[in-house]
């Protein structure tokens, strides 16, 4: 375990042997107490930024909130000390805690859209804490807020405060929330995954705005994220957490360049899967030609004249941000949303537009895997039933033959036959996604559509799934249509790439060509927005941009 670099005598925030517990009420079991954070210590100097990184369940948000003496839900701080400006805030009582929240420490939530009160204007909420704690009069606070809006490059900084939360976009709200945290001039701000819910091209703007604001105001920050590349852009030091325990703590450069713990190295190298692009030699077995599709009876066009080809045993990655139409393309191909114009040819013949008109064999050849594995499986069916059903349905298998095949598939997804009688609720996130993969494979398809299959997973788990998919492709020769917003994933898995923007394919071709300059403006923006595990990347990326972010 690395020791914290210490300099200076009394840190702003000094957490010692923090222990946090929660009471959980599992259905049908006796309530019990679980420990979320095991004796973690950290310290933070004035004006410095400490990044807290880890997968879900690492306890990073819980630790962050402990600096405000706050526990979410049934969470309780049961041991240790939290020294802020030299005093233990856990011993301050309700009044003491209330006096420091919103004054000495402020909080920026992951979803600003939910964290703002829908009933009040933004300005009233931004200045609320400053007025409450007597930091400023209303006029001073509002003047300061407008200045902060300007610093965070919000549009129309003079008047944006008069709006209501629902009248402002997600990326802007996140910046307004940062302004709200800065308004009362606190010593410390807790940023809790402030850019995670944003599109990648929006994230970079917000990230740059936050970084600049931290630098100019000299506030200290705890920056919580699951994305090491993001944390590396804003932090002076990084603390890696896992299962509520400290893994490694060091300067940003040391963590990303010379990680000392195995777990940290895994996080650093998570996106580095070697994948050799296959040659486009063979002719496509599935061709999407000039597809136009719309929701709401033709009113809202979501796909405009889209054409792509899928080659046998290869992967076409469809990349785009929310609203780009990439998932709609999958729905059109599967027949769930019959296109208004255009056609889909499959193995030389035209595929019916509607799902109900397709033959059972056509359905079998085309399988799908979903983003949220837990809702993609019937919670009342066992793994055996879930994987076995396509075998029964398409191949009429039953009894022992089916069970043997299910066991074989379970081996293929590296889970083993012990899982056959489990229910989905008894599996981890990665295992659930693996079962979904096995269900798709059971149909012996030629194409599997993967709709954001790794987005809901922690990076290391996602990495495992990608490796599994690549391995299965080599074994079974199945093709993938891989829909994602994450360019790093694309680089790891694709043979060809289609970049989508507002319902259109703006760039399409083999991976090596698509990722080779010169780029069109949008692809350039998209590529340059993907955080890289590199100190100083953010400034470089912002400096080199040709196009404003897509959604802001």
């Amino acid at each position, binding site marked *: 375990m690395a020791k914290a670099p210490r300099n200076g005598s009394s840190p702003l925030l000094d957490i010692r042997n923090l222990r946090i517990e929660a009471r959980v009420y599992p259905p049908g079991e006796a309530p019990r107490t679980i420990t979320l954070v095991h004796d973690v210590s950290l310290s933070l100097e004035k004006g410095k930024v400490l990044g807290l990184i880890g997968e879900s369940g690492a306890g990073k948000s819980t630790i962050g909130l402990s600096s405000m003496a706050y526990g979410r839900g049934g969470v309780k701080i049961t041991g240790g000390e939290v020294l802020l400006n030299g005093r233990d805030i856990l011993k301050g009582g309700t009044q003491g805690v209330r006096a420091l929240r919103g004054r000495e420490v402020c909080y920026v939530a992951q979803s600003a859209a939910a964290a703002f009160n829908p009933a009040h204007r933004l300005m009233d909420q931004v200045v609320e804490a400053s007025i409450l704690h007597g930091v400023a009069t209303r006029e001073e606070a509002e003047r300061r807020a407008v200045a902060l809006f300007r610093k965070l490059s919000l549009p129309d900084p003079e008047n944006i405060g008069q709006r209501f939360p629902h009248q402002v976009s997600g990326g802007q709200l996140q910046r307004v929330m940062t302004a709200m945290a800065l308004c009362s001039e606190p010593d410390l701000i807790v940023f809790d995954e402030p850019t995670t819910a944003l599109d990648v091209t929006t994230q970079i703007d917000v990230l740059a705005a936050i970084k600049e604001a931290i630098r100019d105001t000299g506030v200290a920050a705890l920056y919580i994220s699951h994305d090491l590349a993001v944390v590396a852009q804003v932090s002076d030091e990084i603390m890696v957490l896992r299962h509520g325990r400290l893994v490694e703590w060091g300067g940003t450069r040391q963590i990303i360049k010379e990680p000392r713990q195995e777990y940290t190295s895994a996080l650093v190298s998570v996106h580095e899967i070697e994948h050799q692009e296959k040659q486009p030699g063979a002719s496509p077995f599935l061709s999407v030609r000039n597809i136009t599709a719309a929701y709401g009876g033709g009113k809202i066009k979501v796909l405009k004249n889209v054409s792509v080809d899928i080659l046998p045993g290869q992967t076409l990655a469809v990349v785009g941000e929310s609203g780009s139409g990439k998932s709609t393309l999958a729905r059109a191909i599967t027949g769930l949303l019959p296109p208004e114009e255009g056609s889909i040819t499959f193995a030389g013949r035209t595929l019916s537009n509607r799902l109900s008109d397709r033959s059972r064999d056509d359905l079998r050849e085309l399988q799908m895997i979903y983003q949220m594995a837990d809702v993609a499986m019937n919670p009342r*069916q066992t793994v055996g039933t879930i994987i076995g059903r396509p075998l029964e349905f398409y191949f009429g298998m039953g009894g022992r033959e089916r069970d043997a095949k299910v066991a074989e598939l379970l081996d293929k997804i590296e889970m083993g036959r012990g899982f056959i009688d489990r229910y989905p609720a008894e599996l981890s996130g990665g295992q659930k996604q693996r079962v979904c993969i096995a269900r798709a494979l059971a149909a012996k398809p030629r194409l599997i559509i993967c709709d954001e299959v790794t987005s809901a997973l922690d990076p290391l788990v996602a990495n495992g799934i990608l490796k599994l998919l690549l391995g299965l492709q080599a074994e079974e020769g199945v093709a993938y249509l891989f829909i994602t917003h994450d360019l790093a994933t694309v680089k790891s898995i694709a043979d060809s790439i289609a970049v989508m923007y507002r319902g259109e394919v703006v760039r399409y071709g083999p991976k090596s060509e698509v990722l080779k300059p010169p780029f069109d403006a949008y692809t350039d923006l998209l590529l340059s927005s993907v955080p890289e595990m590199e100190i100083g990347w953010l400034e470089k990326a912002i400096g080199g941009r040709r196009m404003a972010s897509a959604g802001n």
Partner: protein
Amino acid sequence: MLDLKRIPIGAWIGLILTTLFLIAAIFAPLIAPYGLGEIVGDVWAPASGQFLLGTDNLGRDLLSRMIYGARTTIFIAVMATALSFSLGAILGFTAAVVGGWFDTGMSRFVDLLMAIPTLIFALVVLSVLPSTLLTLILVMGILDATRVYRLSRAVAVDINVMDFVEAAKLRGEGKGWIIFREILPNALSPLVSELGLRFIYAVLFLSALSFLGLGVQPPDADWGGMVKENKDGIVFGIPAALIPAAAIAALAISVNLVADWVLNRTTDLKGGRGNG
């Protein structure tokens, strides 16, 4: 499996009382000390060793009438619940899965029926229909089916848009598999607990109708009707009417306790097993 030790005390009380009521209803002629219409004593005689609950407004044994009343009350309520449930659940599920004009038409019609308070609508209809058991069951069952329809449609619509149902549709599964194998197992817990609530509602509704003189007609008597028969005694300080009223309350509360427990036990969609 069900772990008896984990059943909370409230649910135990509910289960035991419900069972007692059911036994009384089923074996009424064997248990009741006197006949249903048999006049055996003075009018409104107080409780005594001979008449455990006293006698009613005509001098009939109240306990015996209570036991027979349990039979009438529970029978009609069960039949009405069965009708409302099968009608409402089948139509609701079908509407959710089929969609289109059937769904729109059914849902608008149910909205219309629910725009009139149930009791008022029942009174309007009963003003022209003959007061028979069958009429009562039909009127109560159909009016209450609207609530079951709304619930089962809402539950089924929620499940119908989930990815696992879409996966089944993409696989090419028929409507039967989707309704019975994908949707129904996941809709069961809310529906089962609703079953209890609908039964309680049927008991209360029937009792109210009978109390108003528009439900079960003499000489038959259900508990609501017995309240009506004995209500004039109240002003003289004779509590005979309170006894059937209390019985209705006790039955409703015990079924409520059981339904509450069932709902709490199986409320999460996640668990397949291990939520005993």
